[in-house]
């Protein structure tokens, strides 16, 4: 039950974008590992990332009729 609730909470966070910053950090790390970067670029702060993420999200057609 506890695992199911945790899973549901994870889905809600992912759907709403609540965990977007964590996903970004995870992906950034993965990308850097993939390309064997010895010098890691500094990740964006949560506030910086969130603004950039929202600006990019609303560049194109994202909502329909």
């Amino acid at each position, binding site marked *: 039950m506890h695992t199911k609730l945790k899973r549901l909470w994870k889905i809600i966070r992912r759907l709403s974008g*609540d965990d*977007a910053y964590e996903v970004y950090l995870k992906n950034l790390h993965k*990308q850097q590992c993939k390309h064997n970067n010895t010098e890691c670029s500094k990740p964006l702060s949560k506030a910086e990332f969130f603004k950039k993420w*929202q600006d990019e999200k609303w560049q*194109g057609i994202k*909502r*329909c009729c």
Partner: protein
Amino acid sequence: MNKTLKSTLWIIVAFLGASAVGFIAVNRGENINALWFITAALCIYSIAYRFYAAWIAATVLAVDSTRATPAERLENGRDFVPTHKWIVFGHHFAAIAGPGPLVGPTLAAQFGYLPGTLWILFGAVLGGCVQDMVTLFLSTRRDAKSLGQMARDELGAIGGTAALIATFSIMIILIAVLGLIVVNAMKHSPWATFTVSATIPIAMLVGIYMRYLRPGQVIEASALGVILLLISVVGGRFIDEHNTLRLLFDHEGLTLAWFIMAYGFAAAILPVWLLLAPRDYLSTYMKIGTITILAVAIVFLQPNIKMPAITQFIDGSGPIFGGKLFPFVFITIACGAISGFHSLIASGTTPKLLSNERDICMIGYGGMLLESFVAIMAIIAATILEPGVFFAINSSAGVVGSNALDAVNKISSWGYPVTVEQMQILAQQMGETTLFARTGGAPSLAVGMASIFGKAFGDGLLAIWYHFAIMFEAIFILTTLDAGTRVGRFMLQDMLGNIWPKMGQTSWTPSVILTSGIVVSGWGYFLYIGVIDPNGGVNILWPLFGIANQMLAAIALCVGTGILVKSNKLKYAGITAAPLAWLVIITSTAAWQKITSPDIRIGFFSAANDLANKLASGELPAEKAVIAPQLIFNLHLDAWLTLFFVSLLWLIFIDMLRVCWRYLSGRSILPLSESPHMNSCLLDDWVRD
């Protein structure tokens, strides 16, 4: 489960579905329960998804689960991110489900419950779902390219340009009609106006919370916003009952239209984080929550449908909009069965998140099935009302008369009895001064939803439920309005950037202000005309939107058909060619009638001529004579716009036929632009956890 058991189960589902559809179709004059609609829908959706969609995915498209998707190949952690299929489904559905499937079926209920229901069910499984799924697949195979880019790459410059123009045009008409729906819902309703207005500061507060107070805490901020929205619904009653405060929110349609235009302009130039993004969070939660509650309430309460299966208005004399059953039921239902706009989401946006091609069926086909189900619920909510009440709410004063007694007499003479007292009691229950001539579909849908919620949670809260439903509709209409104006601005900046590169800079203030102003003026003009139109405006704007939307769907299906033929799959091209042919027929017929019909309630030119004659002969009362020149000009403009849409449709249709013919006769054509195959390296447990 063994094969025999499975087959038996599917035979039972097929039998149940056929029985439910048959019962809905042949039932005349007796009460029919809404559960039959739900049963028919669920059975048809299950069979279509299990057999037709699976066959298309496996045989026609040949989805390949070993092939890396753009989300994997081009992963950048921002827009290209391999994502769990249910998350992608959620994003895709939230993006495609707007007010269209709620408003279209409500308006089409003037023909009775049957025509709209049948088209929503069969149009979706054979047309809309196929369009969404095929477009999603094609875009996934082409690095998540947009519909316009695919049209240009696969069919040529004509296709690409047509898609771009169609998208921009549809955006203008769509925003105008949505603005009109909100205006009609707020007109002389202080409660509704307060509640809808309150969504703006609430969204901004949520935006500031997420940007400065607790950056990125989306759930926390959204929960706060939802609570404030609910308080604003309840608080609206206080405003409505307060003698001074209610005057601040009691406005004519035209005043509200100017407010909406000013709001649209502000929303297009304000930073995304301040208004658009937080409003979208709120509207998405409201949308999913309310639709779920409505579905559960309908299943448990099983209300009876009161509208007849077919009304006399199939002859074209309907009070809500003019035009016969064919082709106008198909044009009016629009997004509930097939929507060209979805192809803009299915290309360019959703493929960037898709982690595996095998999920295309579930997301593309399944997402549209769910949208179709929303349309079924909307038609149920509209048809559980007494038909007399439904027509009294949705018929404009220009059709039934501005006097309440004249209106009820006229509606009752059609065979749908309604009294002034009945409408007064209903308005009082809903917390409104009147519900006569509240055109646009939103108020009648809100009354239907309030009745359902009232039965479930107690009739004492009817007024609260009514205004909750209005707020629910308005909040995501305004999200589409914000987002549409902003996208229109970007498209215009992109186009003008080809002439003067500086104009193409999306952050250059003069360009932002100029292009936002042009876009708002575009839809603002149609909104203004819709508001001053004595026939309510929706009767003109909604069919125009329907034609434009079906035209965009036809463009998407042209791209799909062209690529299937070029991929040497001519024998399967019927899956997109058949709905395409149907759309070309209905769109062309509707356009032809809107342009040439001598009936002044259908034909734009005949209506313009009739008005011009009346103006010249001095037959018009003074208040109508003042606005008549504007209405005449607009009717001409609408006629030319319709002609333009249908010409664009035929242009791309013929261009697609040309490409197919060249391919089949061995002549040179543009090569397929599919990206090369690359094996997927995604581990299932990483992305599909």
